[in-house]
């Protein structure tokens, strides 16, 4: 099935079409489950003015943090942006904009974007700075605010394995935001540890069906750990 073979062989091909001022939705939680090679390609490409939607912005020198070095990010939509001195500096300088979004609202906005739901009501953020300027409404005696969904020109995703059709599975908690990100990109690119043949993943174990995926590339991952905590 040539038409369903999503595998590309170069990072240039993987991120072809990415242009200045686009929105990129990125999977990952901190440094866990991030598409390291796709982020590096965006840095190499030098694309500017990006809006990046991701729970965090990596750390100084790793993950999405490397896109700050050449000021490629115009705006971050995130729930938590600590652990990053360069981020702080650019934010205070006014070189970078941040839209803080509660973690659950962010996950739901990505899912809704991919699922054709333009907006939903949530109790999260009602009466707080997050709710300012947003419509609020009562359902069953409780107040909720209206949140709009998110889609992007690109989604960059890290999976464990994918088959050639783009069916993906994730490893442990490296799943996190990746399945939602995968649904919300106009072009969804998945970087994986292993490419397998169709049929090797059982239909029920597939976590992201290939219909959401446009390109698959085999990556090499450093998998840096933010906080190593051990019991011994």
């Amino acid at each position, binding site marked *: 099935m040539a038409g369903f073979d999503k595998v590309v062989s170069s990072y240039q091909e993987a991120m072809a079409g990415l242009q200045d001022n686009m929105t990129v939705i990125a999977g990952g939680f901190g440094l866990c489950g991030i598409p390291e090679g796709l982020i590096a390609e965006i840095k190499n490409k030098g694309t500017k003015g990006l809006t990046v939607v991701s729970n965090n912005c990596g750390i100084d020198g790793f993950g999405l943090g490397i896109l700050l070095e050449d000021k490629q990010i115009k705006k971050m939509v995130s729930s*938590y942006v600590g652990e990053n001195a360069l981020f702080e500096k650019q934010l205070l300088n006014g070189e970078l904009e941040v839209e803080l979004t509660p973690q659950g609202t962010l*996950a739901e906005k990505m899912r809704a974007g991919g699922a054709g739901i333009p907006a939903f009501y*949530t109790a999260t953020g009602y009466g707080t700075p997050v709710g300012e300027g947003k419509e609020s409404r009562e359902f069953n005696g409780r107040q909720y605010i209206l949140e709009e969904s998110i889609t992007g020109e690109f989604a960059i995703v890290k999976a464990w394995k994918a088959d050639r059709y783009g069916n993906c599975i994730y490893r442990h*908690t490296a799943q996190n935001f990746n399945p939602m990100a995968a649904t919300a990109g106009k072009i969804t690119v998945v970087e994986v540890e292993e490419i397998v043949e169709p049929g090797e993943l059982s239909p029920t174990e597939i976590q992201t069906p290939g219909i959401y995926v446009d390109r698959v590339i085999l990556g090499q991952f450093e998998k840096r750990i933010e906080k190593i*905590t051990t019991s011994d």
Partner: protein
Amino acid sequence: MSLSREQIAQRVAQEFNDGDYVNLGIGIPTLAANYVPADIEVMLQSENGLLGMGPYPTKASVDADMINAGKETVTAATGAAIFSSAESFAMIRGGHVDVTVLGAFEVDQNGNIASYMIPGKLVKGMGGAMDLVAGADNIIITMTHANKHGESKLLTQCTLPLTGVSCITKVITDLAYMEIENGEFVLKERAPGVSVEEIRSKTAGQLRVDGDIPEMNFV
């Protein structure tokens, strides 16, 4: 004597029931996992997508793909489930987590909480805290009763930007265990050796004291 961090955590753990699904925030809340009474079991939810969080891994078994919401390496307990962030917050926002324990900067007598932002200081973000306080019925706040300048953190009205409104019902500080009812802090227990007067003097919000207030009981 005011309680140590460990004692606050120990008192928190007394609020757990057998079979509770519990989400513990970073800091003192996380310590509560060490004091779960021996005759009950709770299951820990970590909002990055893990239900059934186990202990930290051995050095030999550290896995970059296995972390908790604090981005620490962890393990999965027997019977754990792992899922996406959307599913994780469906659990949280849908009210399926039984107990949530979080820190705060301020709590007021109407159950409002401020915990994520101090204007003038850099805002790092709310992470999952706003979802947790909006989603849980049973939220326990742990914090010191007063800040380092001796100013009460239990207020008539929060002064910092809110994390959530009218959502807090229990507060455990280094001095007292209080519940919030009808616009008042209701004093339920004192830290051993701490007087009602001291608690009253360090509580800026309306404090109700009904009869004798027992001391906390640490086994």
